[in-house]
């Protein structure tokens, strides 16, 4: 078994305006349904990421944001455990993120810890 980091990426351009409250609730319901399908293989639901933050670089250089005018950003992450990368990819294919124009980056975790 290996662990895979699911990085949920959003594309600001692809989002068709703000979803209405009703649409938001439907999107949420779709995510919950997906989590239920993934079941035990989702070993950590992870977290969402706020759009605020800082970039810290050498010599104490601090800049704003995960992005400033960026079109894409990381919206959240989860950890999935499967036998193979292919299996993890299959799970990612059914993620509801695609409806909103986002996509999933699937990264195998090294397992150093």
């Amino acid at each position, binding site marked *: 078994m290996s662990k895979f980091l699911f990085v949920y990426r959003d594309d600001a351009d692809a989002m068709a305006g703000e979803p209405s409250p009703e649409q*938001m609730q439907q999107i*949420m319901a779709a*995510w919950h349904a997906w989590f239920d399908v993934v079941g035990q293989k989702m070993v950590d639901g992870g977290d969402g990421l706020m759009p605020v933050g800082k970039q810290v670089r050498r010599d104490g250089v601090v800049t704003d944001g995960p992005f400033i005018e960026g079109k894409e950003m990381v919206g959240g992450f989860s950890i999935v455990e499967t036998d193979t990368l292919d299996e993890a990819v299959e799970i990612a294919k059914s993620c509801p993120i695609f409806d909103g124009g986002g996509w999933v980056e699937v990264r195998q975790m090294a397992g150093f810890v």
Partner: protein
Amino acid sequence: MPERTDPNRLVDHFFRHESARLTAALTRRLGIRHLQLAEDAVQVALSRALASWSLRGPPDRPAAWLWQVASNHAIDTLRRESKQSSRDADELAALINDRADSPTSDADEELDDHLLRMIFVCCDPLVPMESQSSLALKTLCGFSVEEIARALVSRRDGVIKRITRAKARLRDSRIDLSDINADQIRQRLPDVQRVVYLIFNEGYSSTQPDRLIRTELCEEAVRLALLLAEHPLTSGSNSAAFLALLLFHASRLDARLDDHGAILLFGQQELHDWDLRLLREAFTWFEQATTGSSVSRYHAEAMIAAEHCRGKLTGATDWASVLSAYDLLCNLAPSPVHELNRAIAMAHHRGAAEGLECMRRIDGSRLADNYYLWHATMGELHMMSGDHPSAQRCLRRAWELAPTQAEKELVCQKIDGLE
């Protein structure tokens, strides 16, 4: 599997309705001129909820969570803006002080109180008539502009214009939610009921092609009417009658059209298509409405609906009661349309000749020009009296004037029945 709370705890339309209640709560604190800020803050809170609850499920008290995020956002925005304006800074302080009694400490009742006051602000007569249902759907029901455009079968930019105009009026009016007193609430109840009725009829009328939207509009109107009937400031016989009326109609919403969208007349509707749960509730509220001493037009209308429903259940309509309810209605809310329906009741109770006599006495010259039901009714009454040529003539005219395909087909059926 990570620990997630049960997502099903969120009831249907939770986001939509919570957005309306939160907007009302924030607007009450910030003043009506910050309505837009309140709406923006609520939208931000819902977006964050979407991101975080999608992964973890909603928190124990989702409404309190949303309130926290929305009020923080509003405060931050005001703080940024208050660099230019000291008045807003004072308000900001007041807002923060008020946080102690925010919905985190209370819940449903307080939020409903805000929403009730917001209903009275949004249905104020100073809001242009054509804007009222759009504004109500946006602010009181949490619909988006696109959803309103679909629901009211209008264009998106038209809806935006109507809402912008309404908000500008409200901003200038400076009616604040806390300013509304009990007297004003009693006085303006008919205005509010009219707007809620308008929303209901948007859903109930057959011009809306989408069954789902029809149901949603009726549900929203019933939700607002229920709040009016239950809230201490507005409860009473009048609000109970109004709610009963909407529930009587709502109970047969699905029974009114067949699978192909054709209109089914009351007599053709199948009882098993009725929502008997709603019907039971309707009778309960109706009973409550009749215990009071006051009588409103909604009492009369609910009485008529109740008699028809009772007739459907027992197989025999008490036309004498229907007729006396129409007498009452014509008295309380004079209108040629009500007179016309009274003529039908008269025909059933005393015969077609008496019905036609009632029709002749109505000042219906304007109705006859463009109201297909006028001619359909005339046709029906002539048919009852055995005068088929006159019936045919009237029904032809009704067919020409019928505004929708479904209504044309309905008239067609009657013409076919003659031949």
